[in-house]
């Protein structure tokens, strides 16, 4: 088991390398870069003095180097104009758009992004698990139909619309401040109990809004998986032993239906992040989503590259967790991996 985990972690390194290369490649695909766009603009306005400064900056950030060198400098495997200074060394690059290091731009948002993602995944799982089981064991009952209808509504309603409605209602009924992840008076303040509670209260709406469609999909998947399992021979065997229906359900088919459920942890994260960009803008959430949007618009390459890479790392971490959980839950995976040794 330990060997399996270690091997999975080692296996992530080449994956990360490939991802980082792809990210860099895609970001560099549009012609020019942030600075050359600026230069073109300034030239059009006839401001030659600034152009010289920007040309200097271009050299400073090695933007005039060939593609592969730029990539290696970015990840920190090649000396840049100021020696080795890239992702591997902990230097996340410079954001031209915001005029400060990437670290300072995204730093405050990263933790909140992770927290929001974590609570959303938790929400999706906590809500969909009992409903999925209910729907499968009482197939074609009124409850099943009701949840199915709700699920389709959840899938079909645009997230931002749902967000706006919920914001309005919560403001009317509970007096929650509109938007943001905390009440305005706490922004920039040190952490305190009140601030924490405020963050929790403000997490509810985004969590529900971002999680709805994921929950709906998850309920359908769990229901389908469980329905498949309920009629398998081993369930009949267990019933023939005299187990009561509830015990039987929990011990056998539910364990089996858990597999796809766990395997989805990794998949759900990128869809949550990319799906939450608009919601984050609408709800004014300080997550990386809106920053990613701005950076892509202005071709702020180091910033965009870093955020995409960050989301990839989150996804890989999710995959790792789900793989390890799967190996723990399912002996076929665990022993299959060890049987080959």
């Amino acid at each position, binding site marked *: 088991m330990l060997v399996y985990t270690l091997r999975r972690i080692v296996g992530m390194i080449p994956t990360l390398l490939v991802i980082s290369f792809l990210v860099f490649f895609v970001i560099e695909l549009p012609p020019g870069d942030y600075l050359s766009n600026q230069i073109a603009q300034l030239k059009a306005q006839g401001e030659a003095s600034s152009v010289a400064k920007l040309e200097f900056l271009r050299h400073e950030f090695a933007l005039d180097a060939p593609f592969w060198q730029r990539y290696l400098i970015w990840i920190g495997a090649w000396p840049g104009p100021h020696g080795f200074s890239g992702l591997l060394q902990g230097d996340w690059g410079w954001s031209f758009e915001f005029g400060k290091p990437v670290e300072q731009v995204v730093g405050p948002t990263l933790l909140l992004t992770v927290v929001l993602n974590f609570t959303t995944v938790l929400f999706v799982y906590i809500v969909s698990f009992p409903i999925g089981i209910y729907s499968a064991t009482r197939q074609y009952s009124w409850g099943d139909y009701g949840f199915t209808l709700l699920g389709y509504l959840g899938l079909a309603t645009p997230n931002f619309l749902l967000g706006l409605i919920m914001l309005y209602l919560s403001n009317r009924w509970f007096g929650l401040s509109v938007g943001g992840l905390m009440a305005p008076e706490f922004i920039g303040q040190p952490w305190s109990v009140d601030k924490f509670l405020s963050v929790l209260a403000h997490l509810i709406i985004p969590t529900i809004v971002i999680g709805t469609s994921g929950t709906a999909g998850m309920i359908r998947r769990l229901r389908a998986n469980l329905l498949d399992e309920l009629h398998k021979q*081993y369930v009949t065997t267990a019933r*023939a032993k*005299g*187990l*009561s229906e509830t015990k039987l359900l929990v011990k056998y088919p539910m364990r089996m239906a858990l597999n796809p459920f766990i395997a989805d942890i990794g998949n759900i994260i990128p869809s949550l992040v990319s799906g939450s960009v608009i919601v984050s803008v609408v709800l004014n959430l300080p997550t990386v989503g809106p920053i990613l949007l701005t950076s892509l618009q202005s071709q702020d390459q180091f910033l965009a590259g870093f955020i995409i890479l960050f989301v990839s790392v989150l996804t890989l971490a999710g995959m790792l967790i789900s793989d390890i959980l799967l190996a723990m839950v399912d*002996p*076929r995976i665990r022993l299959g991996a060890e049987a*080959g*040794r």
Partner: protein
Amino acid sequence: MSILSIQDLTVDFKSMEGGLRAVDHASFSIAPGRTTALVGESGSGKTVISQAIMGILPEAAQITNGKILFNDPADGVETDIAKLDPGGRRMRDLRGNRIGIVFQEPMTSLSPLHTVGDQIGEAARLHLGLTGKQARAATRDMLRLVQFPDPERALDTYPFELSGGLRQRAVIAMALICRPALLIADEPTTALDVTIQAEILRLMNQLQSELDMSILLITHDFGVVANMAEEVVVIYRGRIMESGPVDEIFRDPQHPYLKALLHAVPRFDMEPGERLAPLREIKPETGGHLMKPREETGSRGAPIIEVDRLSKNFMLRSGGMFQPPRMVKALNGVSFTVKRGECLGLVGESGSGKTTTAMAMLHAIRPSSGQIRYDMNGEAVGGLRDISTLQGEDLMAFRRKIQVVFQDPFSSLNPRMTIYDILSEPYIIHKSCNVAERNERIAELMRLVGLDEKHLGRYPHSFSGGQRQRIGIARALALGPEVILCDEPVSALDVSVQAQILNLLKDLQDKLGLTYVFVSHNLAVVDYIADRIAVMCRGMVVELADKSALIRDPRHPYTQALLEAVPEPSLDHLLDFDALSAGRASDPQAWPEPFRPRPDGPAPELTEVAPDHFVLAPGLTEAAAA
């Protein structure tokens, strides 16, 4: 006093198209300590009866009449199971405790996520109130009782780590851990190889006397019935046709259905030329295009296919990223010759490589080494040609000459194509004739296999298993082949249908001058249809001879073990359970000299021990060479 008495039981199924009566006023009883066999073909309602006894009927089914009286010898209380709530306390107390059940499929009847020990001990924890530790000890004893090689270790293994035979032992242990008064065995050995079947049957016999329980054995196999049962109940379409002690049933069957069924089973002691009598015989109607003399037919008895030192290795993906893949030898130097006009039987247990051989002969897989030569008589090049060198038009011509009938009649026909589409496809692929002639030929094919050409517009689902298999045969015959490879064509069929298909295949061979390669695990079936038999084990041919020589005078220890393990549907040739050596017989390392294979030697060659009787015996070969 009977332990279980079923009186006037009726079970109805509700469905969209209206009701279906699965069991119709059935009555029979099971005596204490005895084995009662419930015999019937698929769909006869025998499994429904077992489900009714266990209270695990599907939701759509309902007991509409009758009683199921269970008389527990432990406390003498009589319970009417039909009246109990299937999910209720009292039924659950009986189920798995006083009545145990063993299902047909050992592969699927255990949960893959729980250890064997956990699943077996569960019933003991539930019914006997044992603690986890006590249950573990009880499970260990039980595993020892069902003769697990290493009970202590087996407790913590998962079902997928065990072979089919061991899994079925585990299922039996699970059913018996609470020492039930009645064991229901629902086709307990149907999914197993014949040597393992014999061991499981022996085990059930031993356990019965040890635990003093009654067994309700549900089966369609008269061989199993003859060897196991004391009482026999024959069921047909939900009705009990006949019941009585086993010797009366076999020696003096009364009901015409039972008589017919007994005559439909192939036996080893059949007279040469004796035909099976299916319930409904098909008369193949021949004429027209199919009977047109083909341009040439080589002389009968000349080699048509030569399989020469064929080997096939499969690479298994291993778990690790950097480990080399493991190699499995599916075929190891297989050589034999098929003669024109004969039927060669290929017999072996699962994993013996018989299907791989057949697929290689079809040029459907590429062998790792060795050759298959086919007699392309009269074609441009002519003579025996290595089929792996055939290309273009030659290859198409070869494909027309050799066709295949598959095992599973349900998955081998595309459910989205009508029978007309299925039968016209070969003609379309080979662009062999115009539409008018094609339609005539298709109609002829239908008549040839005894089907009505009016049904050409139907889809496969509206045909029964036997009818579908006939469609598969018609498809194989469409292009006028010389050779037909039959890959277990009757093993998914009921006894009566099996006889029908076997007779049809025999008649077609006579009329059309076909050559068959008949792959099967069932020795009796192969004995009925084949002229010569090749026995395969672990990717090697171990014995090859005329069928009479092979059946009467088997030389190889594996062939002998295989023959010993076949339960014959007759009381005169009962299995000798004490003499069974089957478990070890399929392990080449356990064969005595001169049969033991040489691990590092060249590909094994057969030795001729009698005229046309070949045996794999490296010791003899070496002696002859020396």
